[in-house]
C-alpha cells in the first residue's frame, strides 16, 4: 500500500510540475496575474507530494518491505536502521528521487524567501524550475520507478553495497545534491532574466545568495565524499580524479567563478552576459554530471546499475534544457549592454582573470573526463584509454597556481582602476615574507621539491595578502582595532574566511603530498614497524561480529619513546549478504597529522600484510574546505540580506493593510 501511495504522489507531483512549468511562464509573458499567482501554491504542492513519495520510499526501506524491488536490491533486514534509511538514496532510482526532492525543496525555499520579488520574475523562476522538475519526474516514472513491486516478494534483500555503509554515505549524497540542484536556482534566475530582458544589478543581487548557498552545499558535499573515500577505500587517498568526482568538481569550479562574477555584476554592473553564461554553465555541468553518472558512458568506481535507455532519456533532456538555454542566451545576449567600464588593472580585471582560469580548469577537467569517451567514439570503439591523475595534476597545478596568486591581489585592488606600483607598495612585504617562508620551511623540515616550495609559497601568500587586506580595510575606520574589525560586514568576513580556507587547503595538500610515508609490511604478532617517530606494534587479530558482517579485528599499538600512546583497531570485514570483503582502516586524527593503519590480506595463521601510513596535515585538506563553506555561510547571514527583507516586509505591510 505504502509504495503505491508513493507512486501516486509522484504522478500528482508530475501533474503539478507540468502546470507550474507552463501557466506561470505564459502568464508572465502575457501579463496574466492569476496565472502568475499559481506558481507559489504549485511549488508548495509539488514539494508536499515529492516529500510524501520520498517518505514512502524511506518507509519501505526502514520496514524492509521486500516486495519492493528497489529494497530487495539495496537493503537487508540485518542492515542497521540508519543505513537502511541511507539505502533509500543508495540506488539509482532512490538517488534520482532524492534529486527531485532537493529540487522541490529549493523551489519551496525560493517561493518562501523571495516573496518580495516582482511578480513576473518569481513566476518565471519557479516556472523554469518546474520545467526541470517535469524532466526528472518523467525520468523517474518512465525509466526508473523506485516503487516497482516484486512478485512474489523476496525473503531477504541483497544488502546495500558495503562501500556505502559508512557514516559518510548518510551525509554525502544529500549534501552533494543540495549543491548540484541548488545551481538550478541561479539557472532559473538567469533564464528568467533573459526572458524578461532585464539583466542588471538587481538580478545579480537576487540570485547571489542562492548561488552562494548552493556553492556551500556543494563544497561540503565534495568534502564529505573525499573524507569518505579516505576512510573507506583503505589506501589513504583523498581524491582520485574519478569521473564521478570530476562530475561534482566541474560545477564547483564554475560555481566558484559564478559566485565571484555575480559580485562584480551586483557591485559594478559589469560582466552581465558572462555571469548569465556562467549561471547556465554551472547548472548544465550539474546535469551533465548526472548524465555521466547515470548513463554508464564512463566507467567509474561508482558503477551503479546503468542502462542505455536511461542514458538516452537524460541526453534528450540535456539537449532540451541546456540547448534551449544556450540558444536563448545567443538570442538575447546581444541586446544586453556591457555594463560598468573598467581599466585593465582593476579589481574587475583580476576577477575576470580568475574567472577565466577557473573556467579553463573546469574545461580541462571536462576534457580529461570525456577524452576516453571521445577517443572511443572517434575510433569506432577500437581505442579504450583511461585518463588518470598524471594528466589532471599536470594540467591543474599550472592553471590553479596563477589563480591562487591573483586571489591575493584581487581583494586589495581597487574597483574600476588600480595601478601596479600602488599594488606593489601594498603587497611587497606580503610577497617577500611568503617567498622567504617558502624557502625556509623546507630547510627546517628537510627535503623538499619545487612543488613543495610552490605550494608553501601560495599558502603563505594568501595568508599574508589577507592580513594586508584586513589592515587596509579597517584603516579608514575609527576606534579600537577589535571595534573596527567588528564593523566590517559579514559578507566581507565570509570572503576572508573562504580565502583562508584555500590557504589551509593548499598547505594540507602540499605537505601531505611531500611528507606522507607509507609502509606495506608483513607483520606477525609482536612485530613492529617504525614510521614518523612512532613505533607500530601488531598485537594480532580477533574475530568480531557486526550486525551484518563478520570481521577480523586487528590490534595495533602505537608507541612513542617506548610508551604506549594509542591503540588502533583496523578491521577486515566480510559482509554476510554479498560476501564482499571490506577494509576498514583505523585512523587516529590529529591537527598535525593522521596515523592510518589498514589490514591487507592474512598471509598465514600468524601474520598479516599491514599497511601503515603517516599523513602529516591531511586534515587540513578538509578543514580548508570547511572554512570555505563557513565563509559562504557567513556571507549568507550578511546584514543587507536581513535588512532588505525586514524593510520589505514593512513596506509590504504599509501597502497592503490586511
Amino acid at each position: 500500500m505504502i509504495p503505491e501511495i508513493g507512486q501516486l504522489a509522484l504522478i500528482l507531483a508530475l501533474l503539478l510540475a507540468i502546470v507550474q512549468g507552463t501557466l506561470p511562464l505564459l502568464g508572465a509573458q502575457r501579463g496574466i496575474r492569476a496565472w502568475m499567482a499559481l506558481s507559489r501554491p504549485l511549488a508548495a504542492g509539488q514539494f508536499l507530494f515529492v516529500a510524501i513519495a520520498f517518505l514512502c520510499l524511506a518507509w519501505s526501506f526502514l520496514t524492509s518491505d521486500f516486495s519492493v524491488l528497489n529494497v530487495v536490491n539495496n537493503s537487508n533486514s540485518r542492515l542497521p536502521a540508519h543505513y537502511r534509511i541511507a539505502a533509500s538514496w543508495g540506488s539509482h532510482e532512490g538517488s534520482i528521487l532524492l534529486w527531485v526532492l532537493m529540487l522541490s525543496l529549493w523551489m519551496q525555499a525560493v517561493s518562501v524567501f523571495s516573496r518580495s520579488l516582482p511578480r513576473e520574475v518569481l513566476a518565471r523562476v519557479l516556472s523554469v524550475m518546474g520545467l526541470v522538475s517535469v524532466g526528472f519526474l518523467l525520468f523517474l516514472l518512465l525509466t526508473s520507478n523506485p516503487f516497482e513491486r516484486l512478485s512474489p516478494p523476496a525473503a531477504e534483500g541483497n544488502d546495500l553495497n558495503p562501500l556505502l555503509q559508512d557514516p559518510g554515505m548518510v551525509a554525502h549524497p544529500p549534501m552533494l545534491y543540495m549543491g548540484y540542484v541548488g545551481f538550478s536556482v541561479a539557472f532559473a534566475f538567469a533564464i528568467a532574466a533573459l526572458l524578461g530582458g532585464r539583466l542588471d544589478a538587481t538580478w545579480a543581487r537576487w540570485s547571489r545568495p542562492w548561488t552562494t548557498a548552493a556553492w556551500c552545499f556543494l563544497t561540503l558535499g565534495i568534502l564529505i565524499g573525499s573524507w569518505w573515500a579516505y576512510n573507506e577505500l583503505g589506501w589513504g587517498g583523498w581524491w582520485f580524479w574519478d569521473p564521478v568526482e570530476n562530475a561534482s568538481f566541474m560545477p564547483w569550479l564554475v560555481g566558484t567563478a559564478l559566485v565571484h562574477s555575480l559580485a562584480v555584476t551586483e557591485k559594478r554592473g559589469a560582466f552581465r552576459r558572462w555571469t548569465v553564461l556562467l549561471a547556465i554553465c554551472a547548472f548544465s555541468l550539474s546535469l551533465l554530471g548526472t548524465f555521466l553518472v547515470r548513463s554508464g558512458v564512463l566507467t567509474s568506481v561508482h558503477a551503479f546499475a546503468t542502462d542505455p535507455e536511461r542514458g538516452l532519456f537524460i541526453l534528450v533532456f540535456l539537449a532540451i534544457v541546456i540547448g534551449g538555454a544556450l540558444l536563448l542566451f545567443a538570442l538575447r545576449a546581444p541586446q544586453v549592454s556591457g555594463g560598468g567600464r573598467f581599466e585593465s588593472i582593476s579589481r574587475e580585471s583580476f576577477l575576470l582573470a580568475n574567472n577565466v582560469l577557473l573556467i579553463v580548469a573546469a574545461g580541462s577537467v571536462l576534457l580529461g573526463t570525456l577524452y576516453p569517451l571521445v577517443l572511443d567514439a572517434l575510433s569506432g570503439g577500437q581505442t579504450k584509454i583511461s585518463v588518470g591523475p598524471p594528466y589532471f595534476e599536470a594540467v591543474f597545478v599550472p592553471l590553479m597556481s596563477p589563480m591562487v596568486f591573483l586571489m591575493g591581489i584581487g581583494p586589495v585592488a581597487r574597483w574600476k582602476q588600480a595601478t601596479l606600483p600602488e599594488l606593489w607598495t601594498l603587497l611587497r612585504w606580503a610577497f617577500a615574507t611568503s617567498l622567504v617562508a617558502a624557502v625556509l620551511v623546507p630547510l627546517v623540515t628537510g627535503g623538499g621539491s619545487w612543488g613543495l616550495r610552490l605550494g608553501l609559497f601560495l599558502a603563505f601568500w594568501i595568508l599574508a595578502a589577507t592580513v594586508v587586506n584586513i589592515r587596509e580595510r579597517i584603516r579608514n575606520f575609527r576606534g579600537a582595532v577589535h571595534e573596527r574589525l567588528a564593523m566590517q560586514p559579514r559578507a566581507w568576513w565570509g570572503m576572508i574566511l573562504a580565502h583562508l580556507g584555500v590557504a589551509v587547503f593548499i598547505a594540507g595538500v602540499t605537505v601531505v603530498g611531500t611528507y606522507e610515508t607509507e609502509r606495506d609490511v608483513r607483520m606477525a604478532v609482536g612485530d613492529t614497524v617504525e614510521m614518523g617517530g612512532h613505533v607500530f606494534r601488531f598485537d594480532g587479530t580477533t574475530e568480531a561480529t557486526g550486525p551484518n558482517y563478520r570481521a577480523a579485528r586487528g590490534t595495533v599499538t602505537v608507541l612513542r619513546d617506548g610508551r604506549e600512546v594509542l591503540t588502533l583497531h583496523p578491521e577486515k570485514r566480510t559482509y554476510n549478504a554479498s560476501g564482499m570483503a571490506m577494509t576498514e582502516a583505523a585512523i587516529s586524527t590529529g591537527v598535525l597529522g593522521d596515523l592510518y593503519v589498514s589490514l591487507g590480506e592474512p598471509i598465514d595463521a600468524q601474520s598479516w600484510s599491514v599497511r601503515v601510513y603517516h599523513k602529516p596535515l591531511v586534515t587540513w585538506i578538509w578543514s580548508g574546505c570547511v572554512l570555505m563553506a563557513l565563509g559562504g555561510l557567513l556571507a549568507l547571514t550578511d546584514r543587507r540580506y536581513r535588512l532588505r527583507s525586514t524593510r520589505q516586509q514593512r513596506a509590504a505591510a504599509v501597502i497592503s493593510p490586511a
Partner: protein
Amino acid sequence: MSRFLLPFGVFLVLLGFLFVGLKLNPREVPSPLIGKPVPEFTLPQLHEPAKAFSPQSMRGRVWLLNVWASWCVSCRDEHPLLVDFAKNHQVAIVGLNYKDKPDDAQAWLAQLGDPYTLSVSDLEGRVGIDFGVYGVPETFVIDKQGVIRYKQIGAVTVDALQGKILPLIRELDQG
C-alpha cells in the same frame, strides 16, 4: 550574434559525442591478454584435491575458462546460462574457483548444478592475478594453441553468448 552562438555550438559537438558514447560499452576493455598464451598454472581440482590441473592438458581443444565463486552474486545470474550451455555444446568449461572455500563451492555446485568439466581451486587468487581478474565472474575463450581469444568481463549474457562466444568457438573449432 554569431559569437553568442559559440557556447551553443560547443554544446552541440559535445552532445554528438555523448550520443555516440551512449552506444559504446566502456566495460568492454580489451584485455592485454588477448592474443597471448594462457598463463601457465597448476592448481588442485575442486572435487579431487589430490589431482592437479594445468592448461597444458587442454592443448588441441577450444575451451572456456570461467572465473567464479560461491560468494559472487553475478555468478548466480550467469550460472543457469552456463549449465544450459554445457548441456547443449561439446565445449569444455573449466571453472577457476576464485578465493573461495572448497566446501562452500561444492555445496553451491550441488545446489545449482555443475556446468564445469572440472573446477580448480585458486584459494588465494594467485592465478587470478595472472589472468588479470578484477571482478568475478570473468570468462575467457582459449583456442587450440592455448591462446586467449576473448574475454568477457562480468556475467555472461545471452547476447554475449549468442553474438560473440558461440560464433568465435565455431570459428576456432574449424581452424
